[in-house]
C-alpha cells in the first residue's frame, strides 16, 4: 500500500483500456455513475473523464448511447428504438395536472419555496402533490431560504434529469427564452413589498380549507 502512490503515476492503464473499464462499469449499472465513483473503482491514476469522451464518440449512432445525467453518466437505449421495448415499458404513473405544473415550476424556478409555487399557480399546493413528487424522487429539499421563517426550498434531482433525458437543469426546454422574457423573475405584487411571503402564506392558509 505504501508504495502505491509512487507507482500509480506510471502504472495507469492505457486510455483504450480505461475506455473498456468505463464501458464495463456503466454497462453493468442501471443507475448513472459519477466520474468520482468510476475513478474510485478503476486503477490509480486513471482518468475516467477522458475515457468517457472516447467512449461517447464510439457509441454515437448506436442502439445504445452514452448520456450525461447531471455529474454522472449512463448508457440508455436510443430514443428512436423505444418502439422495440413494449415489454420493458414500465407503467408510467399518471400525474395530475397539479403535479405536472408543480414539477415544471420547481424545475424552472429552482430553488423555489412552496409559497412561490402557490404564487405562480394562484392556488394552494396540496401536500399530496409535493409528497408524490418527493416519493418519485424527482424533487428533493434544497437549502432553506434565508428569509424570515427560513422556508424550505425544492429542487429537482438527478432522477428527474435521467427520466426526462436532460444533461442538466440548464437544458430544460425553452429555459433561455423564459429567462429572457423575465418570466422566471420573482416579481412581487406592486405595493406588497411588506413581507410578500406572509401574504402568500395567508392565502394558502385560506385555501387549504377548501381543498379536497
Amino acid at each position, binding site marked *: 500500500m505504501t508504495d502505491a502512490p509512487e507507482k500509480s503515476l506510471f502504472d495507469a492503464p492505457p486510455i483504450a483500456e480505461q475506455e473498456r473499464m468505463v464501458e464495463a462499469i456503466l454497462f453493468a449499472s442501471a443507475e448513472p455513475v459519477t466520474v468520482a465513483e468510476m475513478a474510485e473503482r478503476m486503477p490509480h491514476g486513471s482518468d475516467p473523464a477522458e475515457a468517457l469522451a472516447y467512449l461517447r464518440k464510439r457509441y454515437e449512432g448506436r442502439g445504445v448511447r452514452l448520456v450525461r445525467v447531471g455529474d454522472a453518466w449512463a448508457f440508455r437505449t436510443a430514443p428512436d428504438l423505444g418502439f422495440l421495448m413494449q415489454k420493458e415499458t414500465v407503467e408510467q404513473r399518471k400525474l395530475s395536472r397539479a403535479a405536472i405544473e408543480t414539477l415544471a415550476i420547481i424545475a424552472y424556478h429552482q430553488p423555489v419555496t412552496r409559497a412561490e409555487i402557490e404564487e405562480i399557480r*394562484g392556488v394552494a399546493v396540496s401536500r399530496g402533490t409535493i409528497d408524490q413528487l418527493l416519493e418519485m424522487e424527482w424533487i428533493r429539499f434544497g437549502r432553506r431560504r434565508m428569509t424570515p421563517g427560513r422556508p424550505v426550498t425544492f429542487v429537482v434531482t438527478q432522477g428527474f434529469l435521467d*427520466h426526462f433525458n436532460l444533461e442538466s437543469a440548464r437544458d430544460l426546454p425553452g429555459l433561455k427564452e423564459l429567462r429572457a422574457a423575465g418570466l422566471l423573475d420573482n416579481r412581487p405584487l406592486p405595493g406588497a413589498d411588506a413581507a410578500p411571503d406572509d401574504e402568500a402564506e395567508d392565502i394558502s392558509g385560506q385555501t387549504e380549507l377548501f381543498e379536497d
Partner: protein
Amino acid sequence: MPDTSETNLFEAQSVADRLQAEALIVDVEGFEGPLDLLLTLSRTQKVDLRRISVLELAEQYLAFVDRAKALRIELAADYLVMAAWLAFLKSRLLLPPDPAADGPSAEDMAAHLAFQLERLQAMREAAAQLMARDRLGRDTFARGLSEEVARVRKVVYTASLLDLMQAYARIRTRDEFRPYAFDRRDVFTMEQALDRLRGLIGFAGDWTELASYLPDGWGGDPKRRRSATAATFAASLELAKQGQIEIRQSETFAPISIRRKTP
C-alpha cells in the same frame, strides 16, 4: 353538475351562449383556482397575453361569478376574494388616478396580473414540453440486467511508531512497579494447596500426577502456574510427612505422582 331545472334558466339565451356557460359551469371544479379561470377567460380575447385588456378580463370574471351565483353554485372563497379584488381594480381603472393616493397605481396592478397570467401560461407550456420529451422507461431504457457491485470490506490494521513505543514503555513500567504493588492474586499459598489436596486425595485411588491437582485457572499464566505448582508440591511433601499420601517419581525431572496411603 347542473340539473335540468338549473339549465332551464338559460333557455332564453342562444344555444351557443348556453353551451359556453354550461362548459364553464361544468368545469368550475376542474379549475385550479381563480388564476387558472382568468387564464381560460383571457383566451376569448384572442390576443397576446402581453396586450390583454385587464379591464375586459375583470368584467368577464365578474360576469362569470354573477352567473355562478344565479345558478346557486357555491364558489370557493378564493374565487370570491379574486372577484372582490378585480371589482376594486376595475373601479380604479375606470376612475381618473388620484394623485394623493398611496400605493401602486391601477396600471401597475393590472400589469402585474397580466404578468402572472403570462407566467402561468409559460409554465403550462414548459410543463407540456417537458412531458413530451423522450422519457426513461417509455422512450429510452436503462440496463435491464444490471450487475450488483459487490462491496468488499477490507480491514487494515494500523499502528503508529508512537503506539509501539508507548506499548513497550507500558510493559516496562509495569515491570518496574510490580515488586511494590505486591499482587496476591497470582500467589497460591501452601495452606490453600493443603486444603485442596486434602479434599481431593480421598477420590484418587491410584497414582495420579501431581500436576493434575493444580487449581482451575492457574495453569495458563506462567506466574500463576509456578506459584500453584510450588504450593501444591510443598503441600504434597507435608501430607507425605503426615503419612496421608505416598509420592513417587520414576527418574530425575520426571512427573511426580501421588496416591492416598492405604492404612
